[in-house]
């Protein structure tokens, strides 16, 4: 064990000194997580908060219901921040300079017109550079308008059914209240929680981390081939240590590099990107399982190669294919047909699924994904170990 630790410490020192492990294990995945998150935020708007301004020039019953019930429900989704503005002029100015992405305006007399069963309209001020936000604001306003129209239709239906003179205002108000209470005004469901999908920031953080993990762990295993071609393996084998110590040291190097890389990426993406990884213990279980599966697969490939360069090439190809199939760049689980099932041939898919399950449920949700990854580790690792013994011969 002492010799394995010495070899591991020596390898880590060399790897950190040539900066290759630092680049592949931390800098590149972190940078790509930022870049992808930035790109896809711009396209879908996901992951960012829509700043919605509201100008209530009415202050009547209908407008108060909108501002006190509908908008808070929308804001609870976490996707929209509601900013009440006192005047239309100020709201326009904020929309023009980009502070607000859209503004809903409730004009004076809106509630009175609604109650009098007269045509009433809410206005939406959008930004030509941000049509998606304007559409979202329009949808919110239309939903509320549709709800008001449903109530008005219900009251009108009751009045028409009675025949005779018009209903007194108090009765109309009571009927309106009953109709309105019959349904939720607007419901915003937490779709991500129901489908166990990570939010965008967490997805790209986790995806890039586990994608590059398969490159990071290569350093330890492949260095055995490098030592053989460099002649230093002969010196290690001639030293008074067991060959198991040499193999152990190399595998330990892979594991430590994997742990360092993932720990730094989890912390950095949480602090800098706002990614939400979930329960730390559950994340730790998934990370360890992912590292072991990556080591097993990469070690197996290394044993098939003739030299370090060939091993690195083959490992890179396999890491990219597994990364793509495993959905580290886009959520393959949402893809149709066989592709969504094929994804689980990759440990990366189990890792991302585990994080999704962890967000949606308790820590016990990680066991199945973790066991699946450990299955990869055991099968590939066992084959690799039998072949690695030959690799440690000079």
């Amino acid at each position, binding site marked *: 064990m002492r*010799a394995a630790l*010495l*070899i591991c410490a*020596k390898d880590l*020192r*060399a790897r950190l*000194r*040539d900066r290759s492990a630092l680049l592949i294990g931390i800098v590149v995945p972190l940078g790509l997580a930022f870049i992808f998150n930035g790109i896809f935020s711009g396209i879908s708007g996901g992951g960012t908060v829509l700043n919605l301004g509201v100008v209530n020039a009415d202050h009547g019953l209908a407008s108060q219901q909108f501002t006190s019930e509908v908008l808070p429900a929308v804001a609870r989704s976490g996707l929209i921040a509601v900013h009440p503005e006192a005047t239309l002029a100020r709201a326009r100015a904020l929309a023009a300079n980009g502070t607000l992405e859209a503004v809903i305006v409730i004009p004076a007399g809106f509630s009175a017109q609604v109650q009098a069963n007269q045509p009433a309209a809410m206005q939406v001020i959008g930004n030509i550079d941000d049509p998606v936000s304007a559409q979202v604001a329009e949808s919110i306003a239309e939903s509320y308008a549709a709800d008001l129209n449903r109530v008005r239709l219900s009251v009108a239906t009751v009045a028409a059914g009675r025949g005779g003179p018009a209903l007194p205002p108090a009765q109309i108000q009571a009927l309106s209240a009953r109709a309105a209470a019959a349904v939720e005004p607007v419901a915003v469901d937490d779709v991500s929680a129901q489908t166990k999908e990570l939010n965008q920031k967490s997805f790209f953080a986790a995806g890039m981390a586990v994608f590059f993990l398969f490159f990071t762990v290569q350093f330890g295993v492949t260095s055995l081939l490098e030592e053989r071609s*460099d*002649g*230093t393996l*002969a*010196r*290690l*084998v*001639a*030293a*008074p*240590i*067991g*060959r198991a110590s040499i193999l152990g040291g190399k595998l330990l190097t892979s594991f430590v590099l994997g742990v360092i890389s993932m720990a730094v990426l989890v912390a950095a993406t949480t602090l800098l990107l706002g990614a939400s990884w979930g329960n730390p213990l559950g994340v730790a279980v998934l990370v360890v399982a992912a590292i072991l599966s990556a080591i097993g697969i990469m070690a197996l490939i290394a044993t098939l190669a003739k030299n370090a360069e060939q091993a690195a090439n083959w490992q890179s190809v396999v890491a990219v294919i597994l990364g793509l199939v495993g959905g580290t760049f886009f959520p393959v689980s949402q893809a149709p047909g066989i592709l969504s099932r094929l994804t689980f041939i990759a440990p990366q898919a189990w890792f991302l699924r585990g994080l999704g399950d962890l967000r949606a449920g308790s820590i016990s949700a990680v066991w199945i994904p973790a066991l699946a990854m450990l299955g990869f580790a055991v099968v590939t690792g066992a084959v690799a170990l039998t072949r690695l013994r030959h690799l440690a*011969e*000079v």
Partner: protein
Amino acid sequence: MADERVLWCHDLRRSFGGLVAVDGVGFYIDPGETYGLLGPNGAGKTTTISMIVGLLDRDGGEIRVAGEPMTTRAVRAKREIGYVPQDLAIYPDLSGRENLMFFARLYGMSTSEARRRSAEVLELTGLSDRAGDQTKQYSGGMKRRLNIGIGLLNRPKLLILDEPTVGVDPQSRNAILESVEALSGAGTAVLYTTHYMEEAERLADRIGIIDHGKLIAEGTRQQLVGMVGEGDQVRLSAAGDLTRAAADLAGRSWVRQAKAADGTIDLVVDDASRELPAILADLTADGLAVSSVQVHEPDLEAVFLHLTGRALRD
């Protein structure tokens, strides 16, 4: 008896597929003795070394190092060996000191002991000034010195150097040979493989000549040269009646052959270093003025040629 030797190996055999690389090699080395394993490239030197060091399993035979049986898993036997492989075996991203510290600790030294011993070896190899530099910044000669230094870290009873001067400049080569002489003088047993005859002649107390995996001859230099049966060649340039002088010398019992031609006398004698004063005295008595003397003793090259019919570097 085998347990008293620093190295004792008997009937070593190793094949690679159908190729017999080592075929019944056996020899021993005592404390303070330098044993030269001489042979052309591909003769089986490195395979023999690899089995002795524990890098390779052997097909047959026995090896003992300081009385301990050697196998690929023999930790105790490996502790007694300092191994300097043929190719540079150092880590380029680590400094010279870090390389030494790593191997010292791998040989079981504590941190403080490893630090102390590394400093000694750095001093011994003349690398103290550059100890903190990464070895990829070292010159070829410095790398070679460090490569040898690592083999000395554990103060081995048996130092094995596998062609340590291949590709080395003359200055570094001489420094390496001097280091080996010093270590041998200090009591370390040395196994030195080379295909350079001059190195074996200079360093080795006994020499084994290996060819096609077999040890074809073994002994001191004199014993090996004696196998050839040739005498020393002496060429003298002189003015005067060389034919008569040559005929006079031919009458001496220790002169095997004497011939005069073109202003020179060519002699073949039993031992030139012993008989040269008498030769010069005879020529002076005959009234000749000797202007130059050249002595050529039979060497290991001639021995190898005699034994195999091929030159050592063929």
